């Protein structure tokens, strides 16, 4: 299938991504949101997300506070954007952990078969036996709580997906002529795996990375909604929505601002995921066209 996909093919894919309307649209939204997060965190735009101004409590959106203020007089715009920033960081780290460990499990298991594979699929099956959010929140509850452990908890949940989607292609790749040819030239197993097999499963892994990001953002938000995310006062979209439940009647913007931003953020990530999949996986393109 994807025997000729090399770095060059992925570069071409990036061009295809920005030239497709959906891909460009999603990238524009993501760049905009993450750019604003950077500007807020650098102090260029908005206010300090944790600074309290009691005199300005629960103000409706206005020219100073674009999204209004919360019950402590904190600027909601700055908090929302800063929340987008931390949620992006956690999600990217989580998906990286999942991609690296999952792909390695799939690669080694599919390549060596036998006992290695048995252990790999065993671990995969065990992690798959948990409803994703349940596993994430149990892990988050046992780990010492900071942004990195939240990322680890979310990452572990997604390891099996990467292991499963990469193992299949590896199983068929190891029987393909050029891999056999590499072996006959005396190349070692590790060399073959990383030089010949890994580049050929990269598109499968990239598709999965793109599809996983939106899920990681949603999980992070759900964890912080349940009080198991990064500890306060660090702004997080989930905990902002949790706090807004009791304020929504007197200050609806406390709910709608973070709500609208998280939906926009996740919509953009989902569109990005779909675009990447359509470009890198010709089979899905056939079906979706």
């Amino acid at each position: 299938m994807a025997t000729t996909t090399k770095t060059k093919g992925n570069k071409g894919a990036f061009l295809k991504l920005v030239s497709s309307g959906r891909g460009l649209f999603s990238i524009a939204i993501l760049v905009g949101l993450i750019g604003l997060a950077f500007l807020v965190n650098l102090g260029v735009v908005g206010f300090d997300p944790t600074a309290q101004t009691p005199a300005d409590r629960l103000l409706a959106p206005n020219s100073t506070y674009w999204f209004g203020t919360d019950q402590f007089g904190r600027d909601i715009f700055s908090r929302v954007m800063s929340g987008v920033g931390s949620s992006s960081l956690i999600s990217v780290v989580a998906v990286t952990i999942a991609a690296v460990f999952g792909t390695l499990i799939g690669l080694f298991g599919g390549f060596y078969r036998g006992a290695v594979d048995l252990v790999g699929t065993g671990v995969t099956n065990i992690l798959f036996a948990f409803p994703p959010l349940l596993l994430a929140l149990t892990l988050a509850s046992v780990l010492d709580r900071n942004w990195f452990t939240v990322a680890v908890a979310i990452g572990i949940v997604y390891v099996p997906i990467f292991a499963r989607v990469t193992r299949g292609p590896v199983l068929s790749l190891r029987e393909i002529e050029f891999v056999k040819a590499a072996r006959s030239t005396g190349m070692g197993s590790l060399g073959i795996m990383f030089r010949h097999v890994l580049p050929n499963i990269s598109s499968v892994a990239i598709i999965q990375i793109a599809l996983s990001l939106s899920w990681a953002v949603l999980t992070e938000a759900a964890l912080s909604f349940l009080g198991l995310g990064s500890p306060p006062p660090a702004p997080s979209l989930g905990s902002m929505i949790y706090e807004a439940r009791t304020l929504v009647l007197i200050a609806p913007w406390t709910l709608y601002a973070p709500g609208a931003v998280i939906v926009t953020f996740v919509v953009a990530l989902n569109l990005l995921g779909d675009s990447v999949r359509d470009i890198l996986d010709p089979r899905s393109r056939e079906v979706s066209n």
Partner: protein
Amino acid sequence: MAAILRSSVLRKMAGALATLFGVAVFVFFMLRAIPGDQISASLGTEAAGLTEAQRQALVEYYGIDQPLTTQFFSWLANLFAGDLGFSVRAQQPVLDLTVAALPVTFQLAVFAILLALIIGVPIGMLSASAPKKARDFLGQTVSLLGLSIPAFLLATTLLTFFAVNLGFNPNGLGYKTLFEDPVVNLQQMFLPSLVLGFGISAPIIRTTRAAVLEIRGQDFIRTARAKGITVQRIQFRHILRNALIPIVTMTGLQFGYLLGGAVVVEQIFSLPGIGRQVLMGIQQKEYALVQSTVLVIAASFVIINLLTDLLYRAIDPRVRAE
């Protein structure tokens, strides 16, 4: 033939059992990673006031002085004997709590799945009937929103809207089971299952659409059309029947998602289900409760996946032949 079928079913069941054992090991050691021991976890600051003799008695009661493997196997043996532990806060055995909570979550999951199928299958078919046209765009938008709106946001918004604007808040009263008060129960289940059902209608829309598009292009559909079978009959007898296979698989997979997603929704709508039980255990640091409840949920998930697999064989003869 039947023997082969039975042996592959048996193999599946053996695999599921092995997985469950691994799950038990994983859950047990995951919760041992928590700093501190069971005593300070369940007593909190009161643990500091224990005399040496009291502490020793508790250490023996919880079996903390035993090696971890001994603790693990005695936990497992207790589980098989129906002893899931005791909840200090609730002053009730975990088994009783679980038996009361499981049906709540199960009912919620079934309702959510039904709503998701009612929303998802027609929209998916409608989407597939005119690819790239307005109705397809509409279907794709619904599924994109279903994937992108967090359940906790939708739940919070709906709860507030219905309570404030319509004065409808059946979940504000105590929970009633279906047998105690069917009318109140159905009202209490309505919004939570709508929230969860909307979320999982998205993958169902996508699966239905993709399956219908794929099957529509196959030769036997053309043959059926050439035979003069009406479009409607082809739509339901030929296309939908075949599309059911991926839809059933997706539905089974979503059931597991529901067991996890239920945590958030049960919490918001105050439904005393299994997800809320885990969350309360975590919040109150009752790790014996968390440990057994998480295992029960994972076991239900494994069993549901096994059943989906068997159902899948019943629908698709090709799988049996393999």
